[in-house]
């Protein structure tokens, strides 16, 4: 099957990827080629076949108690913050609607 540029653009929006026009065109073409290849699974007879699921093998649950992390780890986590306000992670506001 083939997807249109608009459909690929919609997927990009779902995946939070800002694709400029030229990339969107190339992506749409490549998409077509890959989908054409993977579509061969449509021909396989899967009547009565269950989707594969891994056997659940939980080794038990850890205690639901908060614990303090060590100072080294804490510093490393904070050093990775793209924007830091003291010991807090600074993030953009969440209450505005998307432009597009």
């Amino acid at each position, binding site marked *: 099957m083939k997807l249109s540029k608009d459909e690929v653009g919609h997927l990009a929006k779902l995946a939070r990827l800002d694709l400029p026009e030229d990339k969107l065109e190339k992506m749409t073409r490549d998409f077509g080629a890959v989908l054409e290849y993977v579509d061969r699974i449509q021909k396989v007879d899967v009547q009565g076949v269950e989707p594969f699921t891994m056997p659940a093998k939980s080794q038990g649950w850890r205690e639901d108690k908060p614990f303090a992390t060590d100072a080294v780890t804490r510093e490393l986590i904070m050093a990775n913050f793209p924007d830091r306000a003291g010991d807090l992670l600074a993030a953009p506001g969440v209450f505005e609607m998307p*432009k597009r």
Partner: protein
Amino acid sequence: MKPLNELTITEARKLLDKDKVTSRQLTEACLEQIRSLDVTLHAFLEVYVDDALAAADRSDERRTRDEVLGTLDGIPLAIKDNMLLQGKSCTAGSKILQGYTAVYDSTVVRKLVEQGAVILGRTNMDEFAMGSSTEHSAYGPTKHPADLERVPGGSSGGSAVAVKANMCLGALGSDTGGSIRQPASLCGITGLKPTYGRVSRYGLIAMASSLDQIGPMTKCAEDASIILEAIQGQDPNDQTTVDVTSSLVPRPSSKTKGGLKGLKIGLPKQAWKMGGLEDRVLENTQAAVGRLQAAGAELVEIDLPYADEALAVYYILMPCEVSANLSRFDGIRYGLRKQELPLFETYAQSRAAGLGDEVMRRILLGTFALSSGYIDAYYVRAKKVQTLIRNAYEQAFKQVDIIATPTTPTTAFRLGEKLDDPVAMYLEDVFTVSINVAGVPAVSVPCQADGGMPVGLQLIGKWFDEATILGTARALEAYNV
């Protein structure tokens, strides 16, 4: 004695135990080789010169006090840039993690360090392990040591070259669809993907969590066994790991003629009769299989149905998991942030700026295959064909002990040759992906008879039967001309 960086782990261990070499000497030899070759080859993204020498000195000290921690104590190794080592940069070959510092140790690296191994540095890879040539690294490609115009394979291309070019004595790679075995094949080294669940993925930057496995890339099968024993095991931090008590001592262990008597090797007609195999690959892998027969093994032609569909199943299932796993790279807590209001724009622009085209392509594919309206026809259907593929392997292993195929359809191709055609690149993995889909172990062993471009033979084992494929690999090494 040959140059110290050209030793295998097995050879180095013997010399260390006899006090004929020190870990410092081994480490310095590797660092010197990196200094001479890596400007050209670009296998390493970062070399931990001071840390490595300090670790080597500590190892030597332990040895003088008779407190050797294990087989790997003092052995210089390289690790792929997607395994966390606390306090060190880790980028998964991506710009979105440029400047990111690992906050904790991955289980595998922690185990290696606890056993005294010397970590030389982190190696180059296709971005987020997506690729078969290391050309998709955001930090530039790695070159093939035998021909600088050719690719080393991927995504563990840096580790493969580090081993082949004797810049380390062994390395770790990761394999989701062939990323250990394919570069091992193209570079001419041994690369093992363990059974899913044998090795912990805790601290491995995830690509497709139900398919990823970490494994050894080494100069010989015995070295692969040594590293695998060091890194395997159940881990409470990765609940897909299994309590592994089966022995890894390669069997059969005999290297004499007739040593493989009783071993049944399946040759799937879907692989061996596939069109499009490079002549050099077919000739050398067929000859290698012939040598295994001369060593006593029985060859059995088998039918491995759904081998044709395995690549399609992989290129649906893997992107689906990728689209979920990579949603954490949103510019908020770590990594590249392109701050814009509203929040949506911060996500969209950070990701578009930090992620390469191949990564975006796979995220989009996964988003598509999981979206309502398409999920049944793609994701769910692929999961059903996965059941069929697993059943096919189960059936095959009722007739034979191991299965052999060429690892890749080609030898190392030219830089740029497959970049414009994603499907051509994906087809490089046509023999490797079904192994990940089924969760079985497989090793690629070099088998070319001349000094030309390397060719790999892939040996596939039953679930948790790494011992038999490693034993067969050792027999092949003994018989290789």
